[in-house]
């Protein structure tokens, strides 16, 4: 009897990283490598072509420092827009369902606007608008770029607002009532009962949206961002027009694609781990 009791009340924790997780990740990366090796063979280029990376052929257009600097800049824009977009999405999604209704329709207008206009247009518009809106002493050469990045975050935030709204609305009224009936204050009920359940359902589409946003930071090239995409576009023109070595374009763009792939892959894997953290037994989806 005592052992049965001990067995039953043992606190179970789901391990976040299992051997299965690791195997899946390794499988995906091996798959990517096999794919790259194959297209190198089919398209007759080498990912490690020294003519691109060392810059001997390209004279001024030395790609390696551009690749490194561009990747850093991309990481900067991602780490800037991602948190801002989540914050916007979370609070706007909440505003849509809050008891206080005054914000609901302005948020609806916001969402419709940012979903209805192409991100490129919003980015260009914001970069032009920023220097006009801000007082001159706050304006630096980077202002148009930062405004563009903010616009991109607001664009993604509109999509995320809908994701969070759906998450909040999926929590039944009874859950909140049960929390209230225990004597919880609204903040406690939100934190302990509503939010964990809303997040459980919001996380998968949120991971999807993050993957989109990571790649959409490349759109900032239109307002002159020298991120990975911006530098590569410039280098590509040199390769195509000045040098005429078209196979080097394959080398370069495959490398660019790999960087975006690794970044997206890493972030979506982290989201999977967070999803597991919110897992509730008995609520698994059907295996069809």
């Amino acid at each position, binding site marked *: 009897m005592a052992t049965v009791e001990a067995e039953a*009340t043992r606190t179970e924790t789901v391990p976040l990283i299992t051997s299965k997780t690791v195997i899946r990740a390794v499988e995906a990366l091996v798959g990517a490598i096999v794919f790259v090796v194959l297209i190198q063979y089919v398209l007759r280029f080498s990912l490690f072509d020294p003519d691109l990376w060392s810059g001997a052929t390209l004279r001024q257009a030395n790609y390696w420092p551009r690749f490194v600097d561009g990747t850093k800049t991309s990481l900067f824009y991602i780490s800037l827009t991602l948190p801002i977009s989540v914050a916007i999405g979370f609070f706007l999604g909440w505003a849509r369902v809050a008891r206080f209704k005054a914000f609901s329709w302005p948020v609806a207008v916001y969402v419709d606007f940012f979903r209805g206009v192409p991100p490129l247009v919003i980015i260009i518009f914001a970069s032009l608008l920023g220097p006009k809106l801000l007082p001159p002493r706050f304006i630096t050469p980077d202002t148009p770029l930062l405004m563009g990045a903010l616009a991109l975050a607001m664009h993604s935030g509109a999509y995320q607002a809908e994701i969070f709204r759906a998450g909040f609305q999926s929590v039944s009224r*009874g*859950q909140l*009532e*049960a929390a209230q009936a225990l004597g919880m*204050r609204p903040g406690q009920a939100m934190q*302990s009962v509503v939010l964990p359940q809303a997040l459980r359902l919001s996380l998968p589409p949120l991971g999807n949206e993050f993957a989109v946003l990571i790649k959409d930071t490349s759109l900032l090239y239109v307002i002159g961002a020298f991120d990975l995409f911006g530098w590569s576009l410039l280098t590509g023109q040199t390769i195509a027009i000045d040098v005429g070595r078209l196979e080097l374009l394959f080398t370069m763009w495959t490398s660019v694609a790999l960087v975006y792939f690794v970044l997206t892959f890493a972030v979506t894997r982290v989201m999977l781990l967070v999803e597991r953290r919110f897992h*509730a037994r*008995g609520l698994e989806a059907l295996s069809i």
Partner: protein
Amino acid sequence: MIQVEGVHKSFGALHVLRGINLDVSRGEVLVVIGPSGSGKSTLLRCINLLVEPDAGKVYIEGVQVNRPEIRPEWVRQQVGMVFQSFNLFTHMTALENVMLGPLKVKGIARETAEQKAKALLARVGLAAKANAYPAELSGGQQQRVAIARALAMDPKAILFDEPTSALDPEYIREVLDVMTALAREGMTMIVVTHEMGFASGVANRVVFMDAGVILEEGHPEEVFSHPKHERTRAFVGKILR
């Protein structure tokens, strides 16, 4: 223990409660019956202020609680509630469900709260299910966890809002048994239910509500066997058949 005086409540044009007076003493088990839409649930919700009465007074232990100076959260700590649809927190185990109130609302240490929650789960016969999630439990088991969750706050009274109406027939007994044991231990209970067996065996008093008023009240025997009012007779006739 709980007094309700002249309580009115409307939702829009719908006048749900039309002047309710009720006095429940300590240790009393009061069963509320009545057709659907008669305002039984709303009455319970007015007592723990999940719904704020439009007019009238609600007293808990002689203190009027529907006043702006009194936090509804404080009132709900005194009076627990068990819902028709259980409303267990789906993202938590049974144990965590029972622990949450003491932990977050009362600020009790985790070890103490856990000990107590385990004892309460044992009391409702679910010690072995402490680590099960609500979705892994039957309806009857979920409702027993919900009762343990309400008990964990050491309430002075518990409101039951049709606790067995959402259950498959085979699970009703186990929930009623837990409630009966609770009543025998002296818990003050207001129970909205159509379980006539429970009402006649356990209740001290039965109240019949219709269209927002209390039409008739008395000892279960009296209300069921010799209903005074025509509509009580019609209703009792329907549910006893």
